[in-house]
């Protein structure tokens, strides 16, 4: 199953290589990895989606923690969180199909970001599944080009992700996960 990890790392050269090297070295399967700045200049934040069973996911977490430049790791799979992927999709759009494509874009709340004589380029943001569905629907029209950013994710609720679990003992896999109560369910 897919596990989503939120990983805080020191914003230093080579840290991405260390994380990527770990996944290669331990033969963990990365589905997607995003990295970017955070509210603190010295910290970068990664969202890593890994295809792993429960035991393997715990090993991913423990191994990430072993990296000296990793300051915080949380597996947010199954926890109340928001995850978003962004895609740009260039679809073939002729006279006959253009309005259909536009209508579909509307349904998915995608934005048109470029119009060419024979193409429409759509931008869509949402959970991965929503984008997958839209791609499926657009496929018959002809997808000429597509790019996705990979998932970024964040816990819901008042506490920041790294504060929410700092007090909890790291899970070893031998016990059970702590209950997750400090969340709200607003959209």
């Amino acid at each position, binding site marked *: 199953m897919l596990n989503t990890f939120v990983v*805080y*790392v*020191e914003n230093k*050269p*080579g840290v991405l*290589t*260390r994380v990527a*090297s770990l996944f290669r*070295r331990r033969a963990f399967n990365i589905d997607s990895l995003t990295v970017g700045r955070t509210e603190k200049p010295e910290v970068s934040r990664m969202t890593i989606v890994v295809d792993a069973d429960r*035991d393997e996911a*715990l*090993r991913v977490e*423990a*191994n990430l*923690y*072993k*990296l*000296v*430049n*990793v*300051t*915080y790791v949380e597996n947010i799979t199954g926890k109340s969180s928001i995850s978003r992927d962004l895609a740009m999709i260039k679809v073939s759009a002729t006279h006959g199909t253009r309005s259909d494509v536009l209508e579909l874009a509307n349904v998915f709340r995608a934005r048109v970001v470029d119009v060419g004589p024979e193409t429409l380029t759509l931008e869509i943001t949402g959970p991965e599944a929503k984008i997958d569905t839209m791609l499926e629907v657009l496929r018959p029209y002809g997808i000429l080009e597509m790019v996705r950013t990979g998932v970024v994710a964040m816990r819901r609720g008042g506490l920041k992700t790294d504060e929410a679990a700092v007090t909890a*003992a*790291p899970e*070893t*896999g*031998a*016990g059970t996960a702590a209950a997750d109560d400090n969340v709200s369910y607003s959209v």
Partner: protein
Amino acid sequence: MIKTGAQILWECLEQQGVTTVFGYPGGAILPAYDALKYSNIHHVLVRHEQGATHMADGYARASGRVGVAVATSGPGATNMVTGIATAMLDSSPIVCITGQVGSKLIGSDAFQETDITGVTLPITKHNYLVTHASEVARTISEAFYVASSGRPGPVLVDITKDAQQSTCEFDGKPVAPQLPGYRPDLSPTPTEYKQALELIHSAKRPVILAGHGIILSGAMDEVRQFAERNNIPVGLTLLGLGAFPASHPLNLGMMGMHGEAWLNTTIQEADLLIAFGMRFDDRVTGSLKTYAPNAKKIHIEIDRAEVNKNVKVDVALVGDLKAILRELLPKLKSQERREWLAYIDRLKGDVAVRDIQNLPDNGHLYAAHVINDIWRQTLGSDTVIVTDVGQHQMWEAQYFKHEHPRTLITSGGLGTMGFALPAAIGVKAARPEAEVWAVVGDGGFQMTMSEMATMVQENLKVNIAIINNGYLGMVRQWQEFFYDRNYEATPLLSPNFVKLADAYGIRAVAVTQRSEVVPTVEMTRKHKGPVLIDFQVEQEDSVYPMVAAGAALHEMIRRPNPLEETAADA
């Protein structure tokens, strides 16, 4: 005061308590070597950078202090790779310092440029590239802290030539590490302690699996109290040997592929395994599918990533072993376990005990005899044995009884040939008062025998016992057992080791008869300088018992009937 990066480097090493480094100079590290004149640190010139890393490793394992190796960029740095990987797999705290081309040249494929931080990324606990003098002090402070804390391991610090030459203000005060993401100080929850104690108290057939972590944590006394209080027998991993006294009635010896048959059977029949600072290596478990099928498992381990990696456990206590045992001991009940211990005693008696007396005394020289004789001769003295990997290593583990920690130093996880001689030199440098023996095969010895010159130049007395069987013995054994005796590429021609040692100014003698072993060992111990002994042993002897790779732990290949073997030899 304004100082160069090179000067700061040595000063910081001194602050860390470093007195000896093992290294080899070259272009990119020359500024550092030039600044050595301001330092009291003793530099040991090695003959190959791999030797420097093994020496630092031996130094660290013998003393518990961080070992330091120095090399130049490019080939100097890449030659360290094997030694770094060895230290990584055996959790040995070493700091490797390499020179790097000037920071402006990085990425240009300059002369002797290698991306050594990239190369060593997966085989170091952490590594650094330093490009300015102002980063040197903090980096060295962090490198030593990371190498020696938590689960120890190698750290590499790559310092560009301009970082060594550039200057900055340095007041000589120690700089604290700034490592927000490094938390080596984990500890278990009260619930986990309680669960562990419940499992122990309700177990009928428990066994302790004692690993290297005991020695690294310094928890020998605690482990002993724990085992004695609850009468739990103790099996040891290869790197755990010495963590629990060999002569202790609860000691069952070494486990695993070439472990004691009764111990492997004990593990398979146990209802509780209590692992202390060990990582269920494949050489210890045999087939995981059939490993200790009826046992609950408690894993006390400092590295959370080891938990549930190979063997799924019921309770994991993650943290420093000594601290955890101190927490458990006051709550640990005294239990007798007479039935279980009596059963294990019967196992010991019932099985064809691998005893040195079972070896035919037909005048041939057996490695087991040699090692057992060295043990008997050195009994009660402060002796450290350093081995390579292979048959001689397993015979050492079986026939040399280690009472104290840090008296067996061996390449366990990586199984590095050529480790013994340089590591032994490092051991002797760390503990000059100890008697140090490098026990090596004829194959492994030839990989790093150039370090004999280092030993002579440094005036260090390391005794070298070559277990010379004319084969790459362990590989030959596998060919005998699993490849139809097709001895492809294992017969090994060696130089005349006695003449070779003579060329280095080392006293040497060849031994071919058992009767010569004790007098030669006596002479070796008395002689002031190093002695090399070429023990020309039985060529096609094998290590028994043996659990074939992937077989269940109790399925052991036993030594054939010794009487038949004698007849065949005659």
